[in-house]
């Protein structure tokens, strides 16, 4: 827990560096998700992506996820780094690393964290195509402002 961290950056991500930063002597496994720009989404070709974030709130929401992950899973540390700005095909937009004494908890926590990050952390992605661009809207309804 004490080495857990979350960061937002405009620079390219070094996944090995992030993964190794959370290794502790009592751990034996780190599971890392490396999310990057896919060339085709539903058959349409993407030229590049632009990520924008509400940075202070995004960091707060990431911190909440880290706290909750430590409550729910037997893990040692979590590192989450999200990159913002323009990213080319294959470039990493997000890295989530989870270390634990045993690998099972690390797999479960890492998968849970990316699912929750995509649902709650205020960051948006714009897909830029040869003939236009679209801000992608997530499918989360859960955090919707409650009206009617």
């Amino acid at each position: 827990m004490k080495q857990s961290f979350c960061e937002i950056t405009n620079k390219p991500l070094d996944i090995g560096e992030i993964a190794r930063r959370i290794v502790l002597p009592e751990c034996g496994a780190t599971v890392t998700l490396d999310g990057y720009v896919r060339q085709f989404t539903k058959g349409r070709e993407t030229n590049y992506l632009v990520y924008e974030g509400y940075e202070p709130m995004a960091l707060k929401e990431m911190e909440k996820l880290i706290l909750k992950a430590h409550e729910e899973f037997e893990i040692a540390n979590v590192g989450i780094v999200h990159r913002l700005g323009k990213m080319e095909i294959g470039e990493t937009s997000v890295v989530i690393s989870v270390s634990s004494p045993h690998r099972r908890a690390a797999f479960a926590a890492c998968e849970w964290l990316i699912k929750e990050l995509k649902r709650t952390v205020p960051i948006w992605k714009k897909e830029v195509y040869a003939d236009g661009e679209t801000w992608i809207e997530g499918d989360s309804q859960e955090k919707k402002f409650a009206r009617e």
Partner: protein
Amino acid sequence: MKVKVLFFGATADSVGEREVEFSFDESIRAETALEKIFAEHPNLVKNHDKKSLHFSVNQEYASGDEIITDGDELAVFTAVSGG
């Protein structure tokens, strides 16, 4: 009293601004503040399904019942799509 309202991504494109200042006479409920923002920036409800918009007060997701006071930071945005 004055509050700051932030827009991101699609809502920033709709409003044509990333940040606006709003003045209210007295403390109001978040839901009421949101309706005032919609009235001032009709493109928000023209370009987006109202129900699909998310709203935060001081960097926390808002339920609508929060009381908005001077200096608060509000934001209106579409469902997040990071990762």
